[in-house]
């Protein structure tokens, strides 16, 4: 309490015991554009206030002037560590809103891509936690295997980071054999890597002492703060959108939801690692299911939605109806039904929700992104107050904050 007393005194006055420290907006310890104005007493954080919005790009306003398919590239730029999940989340929202039935094979292919994205997201987050506690090796080592994931994206959609993967109704093309070969390579090589990554950190004494008991939160507080995803599960609440509101046929898969107890940095790390194992198992199951489709069924990669799914280019040249749809889609002349929908998917760092309001026009009347890290970043001062400044850095990286998503 003593520390709080003189906090509001002007800088330089003799009575003032605390120091005002400005971390960010660009700082090596923040991994993104984050600013925190902290009051510190020695090395202890007395209070902190975040500033957000440095890379605000008015996505919600932009979305009001774009057709549905033009919004997909916007969603890439939310959580860019797992953009395929955002893309799929948006497609699923549109499909639910338009009441499109998606073939099972498309669902399973989507699950493969989404779980790969989850692995790459958790991999970045956990290895960055390692970097911030002084272990650079893990980060460098796993980057090589994130590359394998990016190569699979590249084979499926042609791009790597901001993927714009898939279309409303399915995928733009069928997965090639190369994509499946790359997936098999990843499934073969990755478990060994993840095991080694875990052996570098999980029982590492320095790592444990740096992360255990720092940045903790109780389940009740976490819920009150709107935590979702691994951060909420680390606090002990087994809420996962994949199970609570299954999308893309997640109900067909057998997996468990790892939970922690204390909600501290160490638990968040463990939950993410455990989720990567679950994701691997889901990918294996999905791959088996995809392989079980034979003949014509193995050629299905999109649903039949002529109003939103671009026809094949040959058909556009040779078939009147396809030509008409092609023009209607490209010019955005398809009117949406009236109504509203809230649809959520389990993103890399929490529940990524899309609230779409349509007035019957060609673009959304209003589109709101429920961005998980925007909501849980509010809790940051509470998590770090009273702790060491160096723990605040670890806490920030273990929350998996992505500036692009935070600022939308």
């Amino acid at each position: 309490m003593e520390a709080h007393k003189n906090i509001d005194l002007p800088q330089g006055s003799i009575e003032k015991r605390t120091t005002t420290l400005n971390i960010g907006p660009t700082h090596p310890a923040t991994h993104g554009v984050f600013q925190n104005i902290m009051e510190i007493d020695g090395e202890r954080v007395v209070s902190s206030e975040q500033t957000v919005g440095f890379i605000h790009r008015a996505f919600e306003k932009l979305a009001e002037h774009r057709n549905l398919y033009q919004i997909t590239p916007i969603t890439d730029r939310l959580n860019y560590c797992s953009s395929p999940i955002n893309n799929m989340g948006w497609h699923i929202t549109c499909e639910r809103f338009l009441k499109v039935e998606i073939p099972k094979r498309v669902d399973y292919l989507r699950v493969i891509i989404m779980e790969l994205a989850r692995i790459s997201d958790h991999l970045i987050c956990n290895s960055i936690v390692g970097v911030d506690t002084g272990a650079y090796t893990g980060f460098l080592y796993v980057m090589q295997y994130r590359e394998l994931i990016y190569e699979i994206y590249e084979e499926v959609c042609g791009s790597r980071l901001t993927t714009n993967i898939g279309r409303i109704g399915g995928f733009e093309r069928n997965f090639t054999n190369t994509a499946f070969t790359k997936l098999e390579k990843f499934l073969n090589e990755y478990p060994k890597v993840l095991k080694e990554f875990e052996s570098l950190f999980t029982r590492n004494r320095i790592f444990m002492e740096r992360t255990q008991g720092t940045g903790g939160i109780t389940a009740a507080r976490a819920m009150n703060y709107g935590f979702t995803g691994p951060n909420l599960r680390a606090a002990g609440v087994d809420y996962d959108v994949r199970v609570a509101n299954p999308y893309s046929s997640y109900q067909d898969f057998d997996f468990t939801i790892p939970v922690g107890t204390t909600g501290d940095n160490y638990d968040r790390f463990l939950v993410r690692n455990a989720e990567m194992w679950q994701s691997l198992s889901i990918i294996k199951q999905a791959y088996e299911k995809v392989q079980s489709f034979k003949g014509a069924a193995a050629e299905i990669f999109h649903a039949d939605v002529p109003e939103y799914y671009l026809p094949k280019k040959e058909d556009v040249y040779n078939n009147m109806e396809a030509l008409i749809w092609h023009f209607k889609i490209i010019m955005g002349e398809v009117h949406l039904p009236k109504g509203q929908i809230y649809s959520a998917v389990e993103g890399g760092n929490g529940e990524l929700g899309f609230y779409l309001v349509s007035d019957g026009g060609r673009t959304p009347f209003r589109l709101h992104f429920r961005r998980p890290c925007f909501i849980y970043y509010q809790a940051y001062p509470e998590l770090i107050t009273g702790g060491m400044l160096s723990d605040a850095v670890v806490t920030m990286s273990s929350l998996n904050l992505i500036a692009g998503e935070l600022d939308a």
Partner: protein
Amino acid sequence: MALTNIFIQEKLVEKFGDQVSTFATDTDILSFETLAANNLKVIQFLYDELGFTFLTDLCGVNYPDQKDAEIVVVYHLHNFIENIRVRLSIAVPVEKPDVFTASKLFESANWMERETYDFFGVNFIGHSNLKRILNVDEMDYFPLRKEFPLEDQTRIDKDDEMFGRG
């Protein structure tokens, strides 16, 4: 006992009578409206009696054509135990967009209300720190209101007619 949309609706009507209205279940979420003066009472009731202890989302929508109800604030609440969601919306006039803050009940509402203030100018009464969050502090308008066009309006290909609302 499983919580159903109908049960929630009955409970709400029993407690608030005609103050809650326009019940609809499009896309499986029960959505309903209430008066702006009642929002906290309804949210508190949902929290205490029906277990909606998680505020999923809070945002604004601007309907410029609705007289005296131009700004709508939408709450998405979630009951984790029964796994059911509801959507509550309240409408306020654009001249006097006063809404009671939910941030005393949900810490998560704090920034979401600041965001709604930032983009729609909704004045959340009782909010501890109601200032702009994503936009610059010097901004003197509320950009997500429909009166602010996005693009250069001399471009005819970006005319409203092209978006189906001529």
